């Protein structure tokens, strides 16, 4: 079992006071805090190893390249990919989805094709498809969700046609915390020859994820939501698909040769091996090093323990919040079907008011549409206040949060 009190000792920021109160950080679905091990890895890199990767033969560059490659291997092991060839480093989930959307639009998707997107998606898994639909001419269609905000499988089966090329879906909703059965959705999609892209921003940090078991084609997640530095993230892609795909961006690192032909007056280009083919320019090397430290930290705890802890926190929170008569929790009742994300509305008070009240007491929560406006509209939800938990949160903090919630309710 995970000991959050011991874990908290590794997080310097949690010793802070905000507005005269001990900090309670419940905005983990937006980003997580960083342990001193990650901070130390970043510092160590810049103090001792900093150099550009893959471009020089000197010692520092060699050390730096090894660390950066090891980061890819660490991510691959963490999600059980075949190897680092299947792991492309990106700035985060958003960039990973854009990479796939643009790369597929260059060569896979055409007028008349259809891309299915679920109604629960974060804007980052809607907007790129809408933009490219207009530019390329394929159609973006939406698959319905149930009252808890989870994918409706019948809607999915009904929506798939011979023209459907891709299914884009969240593993865990960033609004309701509902966990989708990605494996089942992938089975349905693959039966019809449809590729599957999973937004795993809210799942990889919180529960064991195995890309081979899920059998997905692409999976995207962010490093900063799992103790790593901001500006880091990874895209998993099935090797044979990545090999067939053309790069999304051009530049240094992603090429083997660029040769000028005097006769044609053109440059001929041969692309680099995977994963570098998709990583143009100098990458966030230090970010990769920080992400490695974050993953090792999580692996030491064990992802099963992370999941178990979050279920305990979610159950505790839901039990106490239900004592507030003016508060309605959104999302699944059953904690085995949700992550540690608790969205709620308070009668007579806007979500922003609730968040600002909480802020006065040093409690950080999120308010609004959480970048998922169509999802709120589909479920006919007002913007919600959202508390989201992680490994360093305690039941004691939830007790305090609920005390303040009751105070606000009785104003």
């Amino acid at each position, binding site marked *: 079992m995970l000991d959050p009190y011991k874990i908290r000792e590794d997080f310097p920021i949690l010793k802070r006071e905000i*507005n005269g109160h001990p900090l309670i950080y419940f905005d983990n679905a937006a980003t997580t805090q960083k342990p001193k091990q990650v901070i130390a890895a970043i510092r160590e890199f810049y103090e001792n190893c900093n150099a550009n990767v893959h471009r020089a033969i000197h010692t520092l560059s060699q050390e730096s390249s090894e660390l950066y490659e090891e980061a890819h291997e660490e991510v691959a092991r963490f999600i059980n990919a075949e190897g680092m060839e299947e792991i492309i480093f990106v700035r985060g989930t958003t960039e990973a989805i854009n990479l796939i959307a643009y790369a597929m639009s260059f060569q896979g998707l055409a007028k008349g094709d259809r891309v299915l997107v679920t109604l629960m998606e974060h804007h980052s898994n809607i907007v790129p498809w809408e933009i490219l639909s207009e530019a390329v001419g394929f159609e973006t269609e939406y698959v319905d969700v149930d009252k808890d905000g989870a994918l409706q499988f019948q809607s999915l089966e009904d929506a798939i046609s011979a023209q459907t090329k891709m299914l884009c879906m969240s593993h865990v909703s960033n609004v309701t915390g509902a966990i989708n059965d990605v494996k089942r959705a992938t089975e349905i999609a693959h039966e019809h020859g449809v590729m599957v892209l999973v937004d795993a921003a809210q799942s990889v940090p919180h529960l064991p994820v195995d890309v081979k078991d899920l059998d997905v084609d692409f999976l995207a997640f962010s490093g900063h939501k799992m103790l790593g530095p901001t500006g880091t993230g990874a895209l998993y892609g099935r090797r044979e698909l990545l090999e067939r795909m053309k790069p999304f961006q051009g530049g240094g690192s992603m090429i083997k040769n660029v040769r000028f032909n005097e006769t044609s007056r053109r440059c001929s280009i041969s692309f680099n091996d995977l994963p570098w083919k998709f990583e143009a320019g100098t990458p966030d090397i230090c970010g990769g090093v920080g992400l490695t430290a974050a993953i090792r930290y999580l692996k030491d705890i064990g992802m099963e323990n992370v999941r178990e802890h979050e279920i305990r926190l979610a159950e505790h929170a839901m039990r106490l919040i239900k004592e507030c008569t003016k508060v309605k929790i959104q999302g699944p009742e059953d904690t085995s079907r949700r992550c540690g994300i608790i969205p709620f509305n308070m009668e007579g008070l*806007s*979500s*922003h*008011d609730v968040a*600002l*009240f909480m*802020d*006065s007491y040093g409690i950080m929560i999120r*308010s*609004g*549409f959480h970048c998922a*406006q169509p999802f*709120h509209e589909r479920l006919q939800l*007002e*913007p919600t206040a959202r508390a989201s938990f992680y490994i360093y949160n305690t039941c004691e903090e939830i007790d305090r949060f609920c005390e303040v919630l009751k105070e606000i309710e009785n*104003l």
Partner: protein
Amino acid sequence: MSSVEEYVTRIEEACGEDKQFIVVLRYDLLKEAIARILERAKVEKSISQVVFDLDYGGVSFRLYSTGKIIFRNVKGEQKLKKILGEILL
């Protein structure tokens, strides 16, 4: 000449919920700004000197002692800036 930006660091139009604007006051001039607002607007309700429900010329808003203000039903940012100018400058 003084401007609203002297006291205000950020104005955000909040999503949904009857056109709310969230105004964030500059930290270094927080006490002065709050004192000015409390002097010029009518205090409808005060909760432990932490939160104040206020009215200024029929516009209701909520001021938090942490330096954030929520305005409701203000028609556009220009109108909001005009009100802020009147209560802050």
